[in-house]
């Protein structure tokens, strides 16, 4: 009922506007075309100036309103580089934005039609055109320079001692695999995937390296201040590992593993205090359209201290043990897991294995 009412009001408003519009056309004819034109021109010229001023106030106001809700503390070292780049870009583009918008609307207002004024015949000026080719080129060189500097640092090789975690996206959930005490990801093959027999990644049990691999869903544990390298896969369609607080993002592509690395700087608990928000959690969002559950494809990242991590991992039963019904004691790898986190990861071998499936 209220919808129909709303539509009726809309229709009425429209009819009134239309009648006014029609009437003003007749009035215009009566007043004479020239006078009518001059009047309209003055109104629109004034509105140009008004729009500029209100617009600038709006820009300021919008910023005041939302600046506290964006970005926040970056929780990784890469994120800090990105934030710096963002501020450099903001300053350069911001200056250009204000200058050009002000000139545009000011010129429109200032040079509106007047009977007395003659337009200035000014078809070209090589010097001016050269200036505004060179200045943007220089500004962009600066932006490209900084951008690429940070880009190569962020996408460069992960440190040798980085912890490795395999992240696999599926409709609509995340699977995380830790290599276990041997620090090697066991072989897998996608045709072995079976949700029924608890082998969501299709691990090959013939490969002993799979026996200690820990496979968990939804929540990923990271160690604070320890670089982590994610090896990203997908089981079905393209997903994307989006880590907004770390400012990181990488697609999960079926058949083509991708990687990214970063160093978390604050534990979840520290972030709770820093943001003054007891419900805070690092969230992992899917940022690539992946089907009807895309908007709900959420993972949680817990950044913990090394001790907490060891404790957590000790509690995890390897996927193999779970499948084989506890043939191997669940607590068996616990003692060695301390070593695993600190031993040098044979990163090349691990990635190769993943690449070979």
């Amino acid at each position, binding site marked *: 009922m209220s919808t129909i009412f709303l539509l009726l009001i809309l229709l009425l408003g429209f009819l009134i506007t239309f009648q006014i519009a029609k009437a003003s056309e007749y009035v215009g004819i009566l007043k004479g075309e020239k006078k009518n034109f001059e009047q309209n021109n003055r109104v629109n010229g004034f509105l140009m100036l008004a729009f500029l001023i209100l617009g600038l106030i709006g820009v300021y106001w*919008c910023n005041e309103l*939302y600046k506290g809700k964006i970005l926040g503390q970056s929780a990784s070292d890469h994120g800090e580089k990105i934030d710096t780049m*963002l501020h450099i870009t903001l300053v350069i583009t911001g200056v250009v934005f204000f200058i050009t918008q002000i000139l545009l609307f000011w010129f429109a207002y200032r*040079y509106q039609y007047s009977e007395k004024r003659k337009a*200035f015949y*000014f078809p070209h000026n090589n010097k001016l055109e050269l200036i505004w080719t060179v200045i943007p080129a220089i500004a962009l060189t600066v932006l490209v320079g900084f951008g690429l500097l940070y880009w190569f640092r962020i996408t460069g090789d992960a440190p040798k001692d980085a912890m490795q975690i395999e992240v696999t996206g599926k409709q609509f959930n995340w699977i995380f695999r830790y290599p276990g005490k041997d620090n090697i990801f066991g072989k897998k093959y996608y045709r072995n995937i079976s949700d029924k027999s608890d082998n969501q990644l299709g691990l090959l049990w013939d490969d002993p390296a799979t026996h200690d691999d820990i496979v968990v869903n939804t929540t990923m544990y990271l160690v604070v201040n320890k670089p982590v390298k994610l090896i990203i896969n997908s089981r*079905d369609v393209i997903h994307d590992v989006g880590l907004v607080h770390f400012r990181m*993002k990488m697609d999960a592509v079926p058949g083509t593993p991708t990687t990214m690395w970063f160093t978390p700087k604050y534990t979840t608990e520290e972030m709770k205090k820093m943001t003054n928000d007891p419900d805070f959690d690092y969230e992992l969002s899917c940022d690539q*359209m992946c089907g*009807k559950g895309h908007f709900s494809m959420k993972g949680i990242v817990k950044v913990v201290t090394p001790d907490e991590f060891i404790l957590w991992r000790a509690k995890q039963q390897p996927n193999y043990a779970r499948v084989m019904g506890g043939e191997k004691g669940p607590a068996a790898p616990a003692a060695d897991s301390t070593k695993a986190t600190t031993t040098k990861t044979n990163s090349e071998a691990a990635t190769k294995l993943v690449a070979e499936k």
Partner: protein
Amino acid sequence: MSNEATLHGHTGVDTSHEVHHGEHDVHHHKETFITKYVFSQDHKMICKQFLITGMVWAILGGLMSVLFRLQLGYPDATFPWLEDILGKWWAKGGHIQPEAYYALVTMHGTVLVFFVLTGGLSGTFANFLIPLQVGARDMASPFLNMLSYWFFWMASVVILCSLFLSTGPASGGWTSYPPLSALGGASEGSKAGMDFWIIGMALFVVSSLLGGLNYITTILNMRTKGMSMTRLPLTIWALFFTAILGVLSFPVLLSGLILLLFDRHAGTSFYLSDIFIASTNTALPSEGGSAILFQHLFWFLGHPEVYIIILPAMGLVSEVMSVNARKPIFGYMAMVGSLFAIAILAFLVWAHHMFVTGLNPFLGSVFVLLTLLIAVPSAIKVFNWLTTIWKGNIRFTPAMLFAIGFVSLFISGGLTGIWLGNSTLDIHLHDTLFVVAHFHIVMGVSAFFGMFCGIYHWFPKMYGRYMNNTMAYIHFWVTLAGAYLIFWPMHYEGLAGMPRRYLDTSGWHSFNNFIGLNRFISTVAMIVFSVQIMFVFNFFYSIFKGRKVTSTNPWGANTLEWTTPIHPGHGNWPGEIPEVHRWAYDYAKDGREFIQQTEPISANESKH
């Protein structure tokens, strides 16, 4: 009469249409309703067909956005009337279903990018302006031109039909990345809807190629005597580069889509590898394909496509701005040069859409460099527009208002392009609402502004009447303010990392801070949409009831279309095609307000 010779040399197909040179009565041969309004070969009628089809699509596409904005603004509310109108598949219990939401955003994107801003914009103004402004009686091949429209029409019908499928239309995003778009098991919309989408797009590509080849040929071969390339109005230059971009890039999209069709139905694995579908509990036999290959093929069209959309708008704006500032366009050659530079660079930047796909970082850095390079010609254009209105004598006709609005939006959206083109920032901003805000401003709304600018300016030439000014002013100011109110704050949501294509953020701690803002944006979107309906009403009302045009050159413009009669027949000029003696921008020269292109250069005229 060299033009007559040119004309006959290049219109082999045009045998059924005797070109009417030297005769006043343009209707001397019998035109039935069918040949005049339906299967017309007159470029002016084809232009109107493109325009009106584009408008129908724009309304449908806009309505889709209103529907999903309703969901975004009021994720918890139910609207029982939605189910009554749309049915269970779309809005069960008055709540937009997730599949339906994704179908809506997919179709909104497809419809607006291809059917409105490519077909509707290029199709309309290339058809209308090319023959009229270069001084030709019609396109090089009026018959192919007619086919171009009818292929567009067929594409429209196929896409329209897909909305009524029981499994819904395509819903994998307008980019339709496989494997999602290749596997019916992964998404409802990837069943029959995706086939309809591919067929519709294929027909659209055919239409675009037929049109584009015609535009290029006409511009190169059928210019009237004296109309050298450097005397062409900037509209024609822009449409020329647009057509070239389309002809070179659309076939790549088509090939990509055909491979997708094979993957869907012929058991190939171009894009598929290592896939396990949970819904059917099966591992697919495909191995060794690359899902990223499709993205390369898609964006090799997809990026030029955004310039296919924006270049015609730039051309229209340049022309209208010069006419209404009563000043020559500043830096004509620089304007042409920057169009050329943009057209070249358009082919060299596609992978900036793929920075986070696992692309080799070095390759990424090359694309950063080339992408940011585009800012240089874009900056030249902006500064030249600014200088064009500087010290002008500006008449705020509705067309001029939209031209100024275009420049404002192009600046705002262009600058955020510098953010996104920088791979470092793209890591954080990729696939967030920042991207949505960026491309809606820079190619969505501003291309629409270019289109409105063109419609208001050339409406008197199309229909011999004016559109209502008051409604036009309301249309402009509400749309400009609305566009900024919708998309400016959306940047903040993107900076906060809010991913795009999330229909409900209530499950997220990080992204749930903008409920009030989402509601505000939705409300403004609905107001702006209703003002567009008013524009459409104004358009159709004015066709029949608008104030009549009384002079052939109502804007005091220099270009050739204003030398034709108020109601030009098929063939455009009743007598000989006029000869051109100067460029199109002699405004305010030697104290004269304007000098038409047909006026010979007098002995004591100053040189520029």
